[in-house]
């Protein structure tokens, strides 16, 4: 079934199509939700809210972006909202923009240790880091999705990189 057929099926409220769409994106979306919220219960809740919003808003989907990108944008907003229910961005001193790429030393890096370090970052900095370094969004896109300024996005990323370097002892 093509994505367009799937969308039409979902708009017609066909449960099998809705399930298929969910199955197609659930792992990627859940992983991202967990990485932003840092909590599996919150990730469950975010995923559920996101797909309910997706199924309700699908008739308004104008295919300006891919379906996956559209779902991801909804998810990121929901996940960030979930984290900011409790806390906001950490106050970051004026760090110079850190545009240097971290050498993740992919071959030797212990994925579990890296994941733990990312999850140990403060919520706001973690969200920006995940969106920029893992998901590949630009600061402008991040700023738009999270409702923050581009400058804040940049400073939170610098802070996140600095903390990760410290935690993982990377140069």
């Amino acid at each position, binding site marked *: 079934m093509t994505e367009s057929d799937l969308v039409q099926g979902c708009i017609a*409220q066909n*449960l099998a199509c*809705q*399930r298929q769409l*969910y199955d197609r994106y*659930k*792992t*990627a979306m*859940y*992983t991202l939700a*967990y*990485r932003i919220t840092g909590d*599996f*219960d*919150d*990730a*469950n*809740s975010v*995923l*559920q*809210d996101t*797909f*309910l919003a997706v*199924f309700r808003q699908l008739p308004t989907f104008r295919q300006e972006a891919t379906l996956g990108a559209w779902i991801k944008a909804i998810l990121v907003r929901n996940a960030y909202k979930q984290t900011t229910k409790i806390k906001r961005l950490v106050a970051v001193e004026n760090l110079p923009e850190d545009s240097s790429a971290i050498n*993740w030393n*992919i071959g030797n*890096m212990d*994925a*579990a240790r*890296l*994941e733990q370090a*990312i999850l140990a970052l403060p919520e706001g900095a973690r969200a920006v880091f995940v969106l920029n*370094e*893992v*998901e*590949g969004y630009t600061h402008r896109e991040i700023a738009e999705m999270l409702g923050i300024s581009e400058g804040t996005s940049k400073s939170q990323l610098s802070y996140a990189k600095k903390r990760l370097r410290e935690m993982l002892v990377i140069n």
Partner: protein
Amino acid sequence: MSDLKKILPVYTPPDAVWEGIAEELSPLRGLQTTPPDAIWENIEAELSKSKQKSRYRFWGWYAAAAGLLLPLVGAALYLFLQQAPTETISYSEEKNTAQKVVYNSDFDQQYARIQALCTKRITACQKPDFKNLKRELDDLTTASLRLQEAIGTYNTDADLTQQLTDIERERGVILRKMEQRI
């Protein structure tokens, strides 16, 4: 895909997430609702009215029966007293039938049903007001069990019994609120 994304683990959501979504999407959702408290209060009021009515309806019959029986009972009593010795010793035994107030285990079953529903309606159960109700219920349940223990088998302290009754009533109210929110 970024290098980082390639090495980081991926996670699969539990089945309960989809079950919750499917239930929310179901066309039957919303048709099955818990009626508001006012409905039960109306029923209760109607029931107590009809009880009073039926009491009045039979009053005439009671009066007629009493009028007929009174002379007969009077005559029988007169005859009995004529034959009976003047001094008597009597004793009687009474069984204490006072109901022991007990911890309502039906509430535990109701709570278990709510928890089962929570695995499907994750969003509703994670809302702060639902969590507050749950916390309140947990506190009341603990208090209720402690009181039950303090009251013991013979249930002689009226104050403690009253407290337990109040707590059990409150638990019922909270469970109903939790059901409404879910």
